């Protein structure tokens, strides 16, 4: 089951194991420059607010009610990363607009290892974007559906789903007992009328700037995942300009510009987990146009606030120091 507590999705499977739980939150962050240079990981600047869609049933599109799940606000061109917490191993499939963020394939509930279409936590502490190559991702950046930028639109040609989709599979209880006892390394890692004009409120995720981030190979193998138990969630993304109309709450402030970020000395991060190998990334996702490239292709004005920078205040972190990416400065 999935519970929403403090803007965090809590996945619990007490029927599998009393410790089978993990948490996922959505971190506000800097949109890195989309200039084909590879950047380190930007810091988390706090959680996005997350709300039950059922609480706003008279103000959201009909399809969102059918999907169930939750909603969160994002500004156009705002970036996010997914923050995973919990010590119990889970296989997580993550999609944007029902396009798998690891493989670029369309949504399927089932896990696959040919190629691996999921991330494994706690080994994978974060996910910042679409896996476009070995050790490389393109940042998740919100764009309005219907303007051709999102991965969904570039791959399927349709602007239907948007948002983020997640399904979680816990490790089988017997495998958990075995691996926790066996490996000190693994242990250490840690229906009314819509009152508002909602046209343009739905957002999807588009590929932004390049970032160094490895998506790790499953170190356990497919057999350990309890495929009889899973829980999934549709996270709708509302344009922040509509968020107050829907929820009566103000969205978070706009994220900092790149120059604000650098001047404030907010750190960048390089993360190493030497014991783990990385997957190759998706050729399909690698072939997508980034937002800046798409703007040029469409003959639109260049992406604002997109000047190249040399990251200042670079910090190196390794396994066991997972939480430091959340910046509270």
């Amino acid at each position, binding site marked *: 089951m*999935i*519970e*929403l507590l403090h803007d965090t999705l809590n996945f619990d499977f007490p029927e599998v194991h009393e410790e089978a739980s993990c948490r996922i939150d959505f971190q506000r962050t800097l949109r890195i420059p989309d200039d084909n240079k590879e950047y380190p990981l930007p810091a988390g600047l706090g959680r996005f607010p997350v709300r*039950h869609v059922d609480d706003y049933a008279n103000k959201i599109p009909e399809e969102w009610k*059918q*999907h*169930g*799940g939750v909603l969160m606000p994002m500004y156009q061109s705002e970036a996010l990363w997914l923050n995973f917490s919990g010590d119990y191993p889970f296989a997580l499939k993550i999609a944007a607009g029902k396009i798998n963020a690891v493989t670029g394939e369309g949504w399927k509930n089932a896990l696959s290892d040919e190629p691996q279409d999921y991330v494994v936590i706690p080994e994978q502490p974060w996910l910042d974007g679409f896996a476009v190559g070995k050790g490389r991702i393109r940042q998740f950046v919100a764009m309005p559906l219907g303007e051709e930028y999102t991965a969904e639109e570039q791959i399927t040609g349709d602007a239907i789903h948007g948002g983020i989709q997640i399904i979680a599979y816990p490790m089988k209880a017997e495998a958990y007992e075995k691996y926790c006892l066996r490996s000190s390394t693994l242990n250490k890692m840690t229906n009314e009328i819509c009152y508002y004009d909602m046209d343009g409120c739905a957002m999807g995720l588009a590929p932004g700037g390049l970032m160094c981030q490895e998506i790790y190979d499953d170190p356990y193998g497919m057999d350990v995942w309890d495929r009889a138990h899973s829980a999934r969630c*549709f996270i709708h993304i509302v344009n922040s300009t509509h968020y107050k109309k829907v929820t009566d709450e103000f969205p978070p402030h706009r994220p900092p510009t790149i120059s604000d970020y650098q001047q404030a000395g907010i750190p960048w991060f390089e993360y190493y987990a030497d014991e783990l190998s990385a997957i190759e990334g998706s050729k399909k996702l690698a072939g997508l146009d980034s937002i800046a490239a798409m703007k040029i292709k469409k003959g639109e004005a260049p992406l604002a606030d997109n000047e190249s920078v040399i990251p200042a205040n670079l910090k190196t972190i390794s396994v066991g120091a997972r939480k430091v990416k959340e910046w509270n400065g």
Partner: protein
Amino acid sequence: MLFGNYIRERREKRKKSDPRYSLRQVASRIGVEPAYLSKVERGDVAPPSEAKIIALATELDEDPDVLLALAGKVSSELQDVIRQRPELFAQLIRELKELPDHAILRVVREIRDGDW
């Protein structure tokens, strides 16, 4: 247990170690006459208003919802909550009434998964 008996028992228990819990002083602190509080404790009059019961709960370090229930009342805050979705809450309470405490405490709101 009757509301008045319960209040008197709790107040007298505290008074044994602290004279500030005399009938007179407690009545003064919650803003009623001692004679009135005495009648309430004996059950000679109906329990006081919600505000006075909440003041008594604060005074005696009791759960206000428990005292209100003993007095046959539901707090106006809870009434407001129920009034917003009366059918749902009536259904919920009826479904939960036979469950043991630990099961009720585990009632959490799941995120609904739909069709996608």
